[in-house]
């Protein structure tokens, strides 16, 4: 179904470099992982505006805050596990509370980091970031969306969290795609059920919709890449028009995107829904494709879950 597979993190590094050429106020920080997060693209061209803080993520967040108080637009990157996990208090007090213009952009989130195992597989970062007042949370689905998203968040004033995985993902969008903060994008229209997905699961949702079509079910596919602010209007419309929702994310189902959708539905337009995601357990080592199978992050599981939703539809 998909032909082109690319690393979103590479889109991040290259876009950052492009924006760096246009804007002098862009400053980039990393914590010893610039070759993996791809901030190296920026660092190589703008060594004066790139600061490596070493394996010291808490300090990196504070430094980002200090730079932001001097009028810089700061991108701070590392693996999601270390920035969000170790730097939570710093993000809370020094970035979110003072509402500073810092973009925390992480890579290697979720279980698809693979062989490194649970110590590196953060599946609770979206939860931790979305409960912070003033924080915006974004998850790009492919290379193109990452390019557009990074540009949009550089233009937005205020704290942002954006997360990417380690692996290549299929390219879904073409260059004509426009990303808007707070607006979901509908990738496929459908009337019987809606699949709302983020990140690597968007391509799985599209595959699932194709499968469902063969079984006579018309599924709408929504990319909810802006987890916060959440596009409630699109969620409610989908609930009203299709009557059933499946969410899919590479994240602990507790307090992830699916939970955010569930909150909107239960208060504003209750319909039958199920969440696909990682149950409340730590990950483990393995090939990322095997891990996705094991934890149900597959098109098959979305199809199965869709039937469960359809069974309960009123």
């Amino acid at each position: 179904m998909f032909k082109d597979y690319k690393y979103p993190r590479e889109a991040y590094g290259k876009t950052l470099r492009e924006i760096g050429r246009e804007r002098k106020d862009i400053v980039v920080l990393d914590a010893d992982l610039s070759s993996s997060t791809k901030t190296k693209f920026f660092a190589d061209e703008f060594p004066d505006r790139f600061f490596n803080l070493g394996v010291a993520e808490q300090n990196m967040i504070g430094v980002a805050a200090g730079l932001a108080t001097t009028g810089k637009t700061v991108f701070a990157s590392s693996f999601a596990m270390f920035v969000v996990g170790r730097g939570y208090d710093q993000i809370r007090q020094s970035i979110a509370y003072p509402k500073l213009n810092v973009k925390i952009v992480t890579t290697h989130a979720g279980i698809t980091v693979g062989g490194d195992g649970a110590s590196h597989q953060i599946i609770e970062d979206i939860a931790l970031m979305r409960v912070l007042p003033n924080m915006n949370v974004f998850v790009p689905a492919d290379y193109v969306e990452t390019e557009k998203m990074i540009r949009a968040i550089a233009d937005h004033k205020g704290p942002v969290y954006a997360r990417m995985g380690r692996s290549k993902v299929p390219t879904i969008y073409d260059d004509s795609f426009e990303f808007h903060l707070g607006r979901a994008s509908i990738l496929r229209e459908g009337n019987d059920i809606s699949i709302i997905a983020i990140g690597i699961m968007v391509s799985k949702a599209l595959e699932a919709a194709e499968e469902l079509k063969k079984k006579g079910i018309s599924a709408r596919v929504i990319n909810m890449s802006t987890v916060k602010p959440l596009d409630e209007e699109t969620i409610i419309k989908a609930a009203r028009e299709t009557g059933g929702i499946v969410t899919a994310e590479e994240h602990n189902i507790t307090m992830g995107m699916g939970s955010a959708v569930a909150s909107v539905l239960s208060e504003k337009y209750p319909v039958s829904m199920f969440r696909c995601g990682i149950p409340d357990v730590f990950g483990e080592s393995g090939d990322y494709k095997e891990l996705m199978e094991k934890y149900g992050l597959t098109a098959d599981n979305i199809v199965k879950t869709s039937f469960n939703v359809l069974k309960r539809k009123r």
Partner: protein
Amino acid sequence: MILKQMITMKENFVKSREERTKKLEEMALKIRRHIIRDIYEAGSGHPGGSLSATDIITALYFYIMKHDPKNPKWKNRDRFVLSKGHSCPALYAALAESGYFDVKELLTLRKLGSRLQGHPSMKIPGIDICTGSLGQGLSVAVGMALGARLDRKLYRIFVLLGDGELQCGEVWEAAMAAAHYKLGRITAIIDRNRLQIDGNTEKVMSIEPLSFKFKAFGWHVTEVNGHNFNEIIGAIEKGVKIKGKPKVIIAHTTKGKGVSFMEGSVAFHGKPPNDEQFKIAMKELGGD
């Protein structure tokens, strides 16, 4: 214009050292009275560490720092980061006495709807960063210094840290970064009052030998009596001449300084005075 105004203010002080000290001591006494009154009115707060830090904050705001209360966002202003955010009653009083806001507002400390939160927030003119959760201020100062370097600005960054706070690992991450990037515009001042909530710092979790630690991290270290204006000012001014190296001043202080029953007392780390104690404290500080 603004700079001239600042220099004039400084010149006024400099007529003689004795006069400078006298003026700063008067201001410090005023600030101590604010601290006691504000915390008493609030019914909660941290008098001990506010009083130990008062002379340092007074020296910074009324002699050392270039700042303009009428223009809190002035781009060339010196920055101050109160990393030990719980000492904010001293900072709020210094800001109000400098003219950032009306001194009457000080009595709203910790009250619902007030700009004067229990720990520094961005609502207050003259505050550049939220603090309160310890250990983060030096990191923020490193960011400010890097920003100054990128913009080719000459302002300096002063950070006030508590001694208990030095137990936070992040402080040492920041200390490493400040030396690595040769951030000579940073002056950190340690309010070394030797007491933290659970007791003597050396009993709770020893931080000594402190000056050796900072030296090993690549910092220029001075030790002063944190209640002696000539020593505080002298150390900061000497530090200006040392380029390419962050400076730390270990200021030996007394927790609760100025109020007899609060001096050296852990009990008043985070407890307001009662009615009777309030009266005694104000009397000792020359108030009514």
